[in-house]
């Protein structure tokens, strides 16, 4: 391995790593928010039969199917190449973050929903019986328990989304993957370039994985109290 080459390439990888991290973080936070909203709509629809909620619920279902059953690559292509034809220009980074949020929102919604549905119905009755209003009930009783149940799935989604950022080079963003590809194209140091690439992803994902395990343990404590 050419250590000198690797040393020289390090600053490139470092700035790409920061970019990947920034896009991932934004995408994860936004898709968590979007997913939570979607899952609450679906959850409330089960309990309250109103026409507005029914329509909104249908919309959410369509969105979830769309986001989960189309590849990110194609979603990004659409945002980057098709939207300008409709008169909407987005920057590369906006495209990447919006694409990631669109994809992640669907997955997060399903994970939150599994958590919400995992909370026993008796908890609902119990909360009502002590005089909590429906919103208080969701906020203080149902949601904390649902979150504890959903954390493993949500965590898996986070890691999945970070890995998915490896396709954002198609909207001309200098992320880790594109740096590696460029270096290979220019210098043919395939081994070194790919080695650094793998290293960078590990550097990014192993701590995330570790943090998620800690978080899971903390929240599960709340659930089971062991």
């Amino acid at each position, binding site marked *: 391995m050419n250590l000198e080459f690797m040393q020289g390439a390090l600053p490139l990888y470092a700035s790409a790593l920061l970019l990947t991290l920034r896009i991932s973080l934004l995408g994860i936070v936004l898709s968590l928010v979007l997913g939570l909203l979607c899952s609450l709509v679906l959850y409330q629809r089960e309990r309250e039969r109103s026409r507005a909620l029914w329509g909104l619920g249908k919309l959410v279902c369509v969105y979830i199917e769309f986001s989960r059953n189309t590849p990110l690559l194609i979603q990004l292509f659409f945002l980057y190449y098709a939207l300008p034809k409709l008169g909407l220009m987005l920057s590369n980074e906006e495209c990447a973050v919006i694409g990631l949020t669109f994809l992640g929102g669907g997955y997060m919604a399903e994970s939150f929903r599994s958590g919400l549905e995992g909370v026993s119905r008796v*908890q609902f009755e*119990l909360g*009502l019986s*002590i*005089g909590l209003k429906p919103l*208080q009930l969701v906020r*203080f009783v149902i949601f904390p*328990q649902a979150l504890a149940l959903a954390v493993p799935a949500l965590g898996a989604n986070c890691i999945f989304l970070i890995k998915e950022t490896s396709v954002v080079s198609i909207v001309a963003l200098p992320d880790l993957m594109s740096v590696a590809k460029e270096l290979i194209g220019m210098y043919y140091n395939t081994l070194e370039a790919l080695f650094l690439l793998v290293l960078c992803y590990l550097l990014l994902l192993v701590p995330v994985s570790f943090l998620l395990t800690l978080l899971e343990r903390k929240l599960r404590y*709340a659930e089971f*109290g062991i």
Partner: protein
Amino acid sequence: MIYINKISKWYGHFQVLNNCSAGIKKGEVVVVCGPSGSGKSTLIKTVNGLEPVQAGEIIVDNTVVTDRRTDMAGLRARVGMVFQHFELFPHLSVMQNLVLPQRKVLKRSREEAEEKAMGLLQRVGMQEHAGRHPGQLSGGQQQRAAIARALCMDPVAMLFDEPTSALDPEMIKEVLTVMVTLAYEGMTMIVVTHEMGFARQVAHRILFMDEGRIVEDTPKDIFFKTPQTLRAVDFLSKIIH
């Protein structure tokens, strides 16, 4: 205190409650018994509006439960309920379980709520477990904490839905002891239970239900000595060994 006037309820075509009427005076302890599926739990849950009824009227402490305009959360805050599966909120400690409804529903301050909670935990013998989570407690301990939580709200009446049916025999007594004390202190109580010992000791009246009807509404002595219906005679012969 509680008036149940000709209420009926259907699940689809199946009638769970059939023209049930009963009145419970302040300080009265009424035990509801009967075979499973006779509508006991449904009846008790209509009293705080957890189960809506399709016909009839229920009035609790001058509030019309069956009126759609009634503030149900406000009513439920005044009527304590204890469930079969000793339900606490599993993500909160015992103390937090008792404090949450006081703060969110009654808007008490934290200090006030904690003081009240500690006092009631002492009453049910649970003060040492205030910091624990429900998962770390036995069924009997959870049920006693659930009773304390209901009492925190200073209820005008208490509803018990088979509070001991899911407990190990050894733990039944500790829960019944708490309930007996409560009855002697003059709490208005409706108790769905098969614990005939409890009924004999503290009940004023027994409601015997079968197939969605209240078929007997008699003082306990009469119910145990000379049941009025064959169905009740049959039931008692099976339940009392």
